[in-house]
């Protein structure tokens, strides 16, 4: 093997000499940013602090959402066991009869609904894209901050407000919303339809409306920043794939979330003004209600017009993080950079024209379904391109198997496993059997839930040194990885079989279905695995907070030997990110192992004898 060379350069000197002077530090407005505790850590306008706010809020939500899943898994794994011991936590939602405690069925549905809402929106949208878009867009593009730090701060605080309302709804007397994370009418439209359809649903809607505002404020900022504030030399085709992913995610969000807002707007009319947008003749508890002419399917169209792009809003950032982490720790350029960007764009475009694959069984015209089948299956093409490129990036690399890398590889594994089942579901004929079964649960948990979490973990372990100036403990990290990888497959793999056998999702109990009795033990197994995986996540949270204060200190500013600009800032970068000039970019982000050099960062000028420059 040839000797690995390391470029000799001094970052400060380089930036001083070749950087771009934007006269930033002549203004002294940094004082306004960090003059006291409140504007430094609470109402901060600094994108790096806002990123951490999104992350920690997201982590709290993740714990809540995951704990909920453990509780309803207990119900599914051990349906007849005594749950009285949960009474101190759940109060009246555990009904005790003859000393045997049982989970209230209404609350079971509330738990399932809240679990979905929390993980999809609060954790994997705000917690994932909010965190990393904020942290990395300015840092990797060589910008001082977002285009509008103020709107950026508002974006977090709208998310916070939305969180408070959602959290509050968990404690009201009638319980939180219980109609499923998709909020289909009539359960969401008729306050009297179920106990969670009253105040719970109102709070759910209000919370999500604020959530939409947060996403839009964030998105406007991300897009404006990417298009306007890239440093000198950072052409679009030199941006790291992380930024491409966040940028396209923001565009998708900006075009799809408003449609959810429209759906909620009409839903609110139905709920409070007696309109019949989504309601038709209906009898509730023996009472004939005065609605006519509406269609619940209309809501499904509006919802999934957001809902399907939303799943890509979740996965694209995770893909971006994975691409970056894989390339850095394989010490190889990402394979097929342009193809990666083009597939992100293709996925984004296609994500808007496949929504009805969630509605094959809702009574849409089968001929129309066919069109959606075709578009849906076409999405597999750009997805596969990305998968091949990740694998090819790994091939022949100098792989460092550290925690971020493990999680990035885990992401690829999960994305393949879950993507394959998507192809089953995308066929409307097969979907007749599989719709609303555990097969769908397995599909989207693996491809979206677990995969996105893996991308997020890869990002957290990789950028932790940038966020906190310390490393997370790697032994705990590896336990976290293996526990989660094995555990997640143990939980979701068996669900494919139960789903194929027809076991429906969102059922409280299966005791009246003899055919499903055979899965009782399997269900127990899944529940035990879920509890263990939850424990492993707690380990992660402990590692995270412990390392903030006691982790191994970062001593050099570029500990991973990475090429992107965030590693040219001081270890604990202040307001404005760079002390003096802004770095100027001379190359793409993936010059690893080039001309015998281990890595050549983006701000290093091109030397005369260099081979092709991107």
């Amino acid at each position: 093997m040839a000797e690995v060379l390391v470029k000799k350069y001094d970052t400060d000197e380089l930036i001083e000499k070749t950087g771009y002077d934007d006269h930033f530090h002549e203004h002294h407005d940094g004082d306004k940013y960090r003059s006291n505790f409140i504007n430094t850590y609470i109402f901060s306008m600094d994108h790096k602090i806002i990123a951490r706010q999104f992350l920690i809020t997201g982590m709290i939500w993740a714990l809540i959402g995951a704990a909920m899943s453990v509780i309803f898994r207990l119900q599914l794994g051990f349906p007849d066991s005594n749950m009285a011991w949960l009474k101190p936590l759940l109060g009246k939602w555990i009904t005790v009869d003859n000393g045997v405690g049982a989970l209230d069925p209404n609350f079971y549905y509330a738990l399932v609904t809240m679990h979905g809402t929390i993980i999809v929106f609060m954790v994997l949208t705000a917690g994932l894209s909010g965190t990393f878009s904020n942290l990395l867009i300015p840092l990797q593009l060589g910008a001082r901050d977002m285009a509008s730090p103020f709107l950026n701060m508002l974006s977090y605080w709208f998310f916070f407000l939305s969180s408070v309302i959602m959290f509050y709804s968990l404690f009201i007397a009638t319980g939180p919303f219980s109609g499923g994370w998709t909020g289909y009418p009539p359960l969401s439209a008729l306050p009297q339809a179920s106990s969670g359809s009253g105040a719970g649903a109102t709070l759910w809607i209000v919370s999500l409306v604020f959530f939409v505002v947060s996403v839009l404020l964030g998105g406007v900022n991300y897009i404006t920043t990417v298009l306007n504030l890239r440093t000198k030399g950072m052409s679009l085709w030199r941006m790291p794939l992380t930024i491409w992913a966040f940028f396209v995610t923001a565009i998708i969000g900006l075009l799809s979330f408003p449609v959810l807002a429209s759906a909620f707007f009409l839903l609110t009319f139905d709920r409070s003004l007696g309109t019949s947008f989504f309601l038709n003749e209906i009898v509730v508890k023996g009472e004939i209600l005065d609605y006519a002419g509406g269609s619940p399917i209309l809501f499904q169209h509006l919802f999934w017009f957001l809902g399907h792009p939303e799943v890509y809003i979740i996965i694209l950032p995770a893909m971006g993080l994975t691409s970056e982490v894989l390339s850095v720790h394989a010490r190889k350029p990402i394979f097929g950079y342009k193809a990666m960007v083009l597939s992100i764009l293709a996925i984004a475009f296609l994500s808007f024209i496949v929504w009805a694959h969630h509605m094959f069984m809702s009574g849409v015209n089968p001929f129309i379904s066919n069109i959606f089948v075709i578009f849906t299956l076409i999405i597999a093409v750009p997805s596969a391109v990305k998968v091949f490129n990740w694998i090819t990036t790994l091939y022949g690399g100098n792989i460092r198997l550290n925690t971020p890398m493990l999680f990035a590889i885990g992401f690829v594994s999960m994305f393949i496993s879950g993507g394959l089942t998507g192809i089953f579901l995308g066929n409307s004929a097969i979907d007749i059997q599989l719709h609303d079964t555990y097969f769908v649960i397995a599909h989207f948990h693996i491809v979206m839930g677990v995969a996105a979490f893996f991308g997020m973990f890869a990002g957290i372990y990789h950028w932790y040194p940038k966020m906190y100036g310390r490393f997370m403990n790697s032994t705990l990290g590896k336990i976290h990885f293996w526990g989660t990888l094995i555990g997640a497959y143990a939980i979701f793999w068996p669900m494919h079989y139960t789903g194929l056998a027809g076991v429906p999702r969102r059922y409280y109990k299966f005791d009246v279905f003899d055919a499903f009795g055979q899965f009782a033990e399997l269900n127990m197994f899944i529940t035990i695995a879920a509890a263990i995986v939850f424990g492993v996540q707690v380990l992660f949270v402990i590692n995270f907070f412990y390392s903030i204060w006691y982790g191994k200190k970062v001593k050099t500013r570029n500990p991973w030997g990475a090429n992107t600009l965030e590693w040219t800032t001081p270890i604990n970068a202040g307001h404005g990110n760079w002390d003096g000039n802004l770095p100027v970019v001379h190359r793409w982000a993936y010059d690893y192992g080039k001309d015998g050099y281990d890595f050549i960062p983006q701000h290093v000028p091109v030397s005369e004898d260099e081979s092709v420059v991107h």
Partner: protein
Amino acid sequence: MESTSGIKLTNSYNRSKIHPHKFALYVSMASIIMMFAGLTSAFVVRRAAGNWLEFYMPQEFYISAAVIVVSSICLHLSIRSFKRGSEAGYRLFMILAMICGIAFVGLQYSGWLTLDAGGISVDGNPSGSFVYAISGLHAAHVVGGIAVLLVCALRAFTVPYKRTERRLIRLELSAIYWHFVDILWLYLLFFMIWQM
């Protein structure tokens, strides 16, 4: 560089010819368009499903369309006067633009009353409900615009007149949004007439 709207602009390397705040506003307009696109496509889909009552738009909706166009023109003239250094024109047209804006909302309201009196109630056939919902959501956006004009007008009368780049940007931002809600109403009205 701090704009008076309270939005901090960082320096960085600014590569675009258009002001970042204007750019951000255009991006936000795209999402407002998506919101109404969602509503109008729901309208089309629901209409195709039958059981759909057809009716004429109230006259007030046409008058309000004319009024909001006049309002846009006034705002345009106000900014032109501002640029040319005519303080009186700047103030006068600003006030006129705002009054027309308020009149627009009033007309929409009386349009709803007319509809209701004609038997098209909010909770009747979905065709009527859609008209209320769409025009209502649009009116809410106009109210937001009126608030902006109110601030502009207050400043026109209280802050001593001075032609600065920063104030011009503020005015232009307000105008872009105002013309946007104006055109949006013309589109929505046309859409509803065409669909009925």
